[in-house]
């Protein structure tokens, strides 16, 4: 199993229900908060346009819709290097995450941005999503 398959495996935990967040064991005083780890596997040669899209507009749309960017990274080693974006969002709750993504997909700025950035073909081949809560011993982030 190569690293890419491993990371794809991480993302196998897809969001299935908006209510599952209610039973999540959160840490500290903010029990509703959830973190979303997203790994984007790009098509050949499409990482740079993807990074450009995030840099110039996409992260700002996230923030406007209540999705807080914790960090955005690119892997340093093969086989993920040069073809992968890893990032993490923080949402107020699982229900808020669902609502924010629903708004995002219909957001006029996003719809336009997506169409323009994908004029020469889609950028992302596959994305992995993992929702998580902080452990009780974790630093706040």
């Amino acid at each position, binding site marked *: 199993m190569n690293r890419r398959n491993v990371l794809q495996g991480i993302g196998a*935990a897809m969001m299935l229900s908006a209510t599952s967040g209610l039973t999540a064991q959160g840490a500290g005083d903010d029990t509703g908060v959830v973190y979303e780890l997203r790994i984007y596997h790009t098509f050949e040669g499409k990482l740079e346009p993807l990074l450009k899209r995030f840099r110039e507009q996409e992260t700002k749309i996230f923030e406007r819709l209540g999705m807080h960017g914790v960090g955005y990274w690119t892997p340093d080693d093969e086989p993920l290097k040069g073809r992968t974006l890893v990032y993490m969002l923080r949402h107020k709750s699982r229900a808020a995450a669902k609502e924010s993504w629903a708004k995002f997909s219909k957001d006029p700025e996003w719809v336009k941005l997506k169409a323009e950035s994908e004029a020469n073909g889609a950028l992302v081949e596959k994305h992995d999503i993992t929702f998580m809560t902080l452990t009780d011993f974790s630093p706040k982030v």
Partner: protein
Amino acid sequence: MTRREVLQGMSAAMMLSTASGLEAQASGAKADVVYELRVYHANEGKLDALLARFRDHTVEIFKRHGMKSVAYWTPTDEPLKGRTLIYILEHPSRAAATANWRAFHDDPEWVKVSTASEVNGKLVEKVDSTYMTLTDFSPAI
């Protein structure tokens, strides 16, 4: 710590950041800093014991060896729920990460704790590690 000591510390830090800032290309990134995303797949029924080991020992041992904990999470959905720990470490550089892990494995407390925690069998079936760099548009962490 007196205010004078604090200010001396600040000016020393500013001088350091000026020097390293010359090499920094990214607004969110500190020159050589690397982030390590680690995903631990626990053996059946071993997640609680693994979390206890991190809570009681591992996090402190990391700190002792210059491995900064960004955060620790557990996934909220199947199939990873109840069997997975995800965390991110920050290392001063990739070379430091290698040296840090070596020092960690040789640490007497770790040797004792890992042996004691696995008298009834290994806690972790598999570890995935991905080294990453912050993108130029990422918030600082």
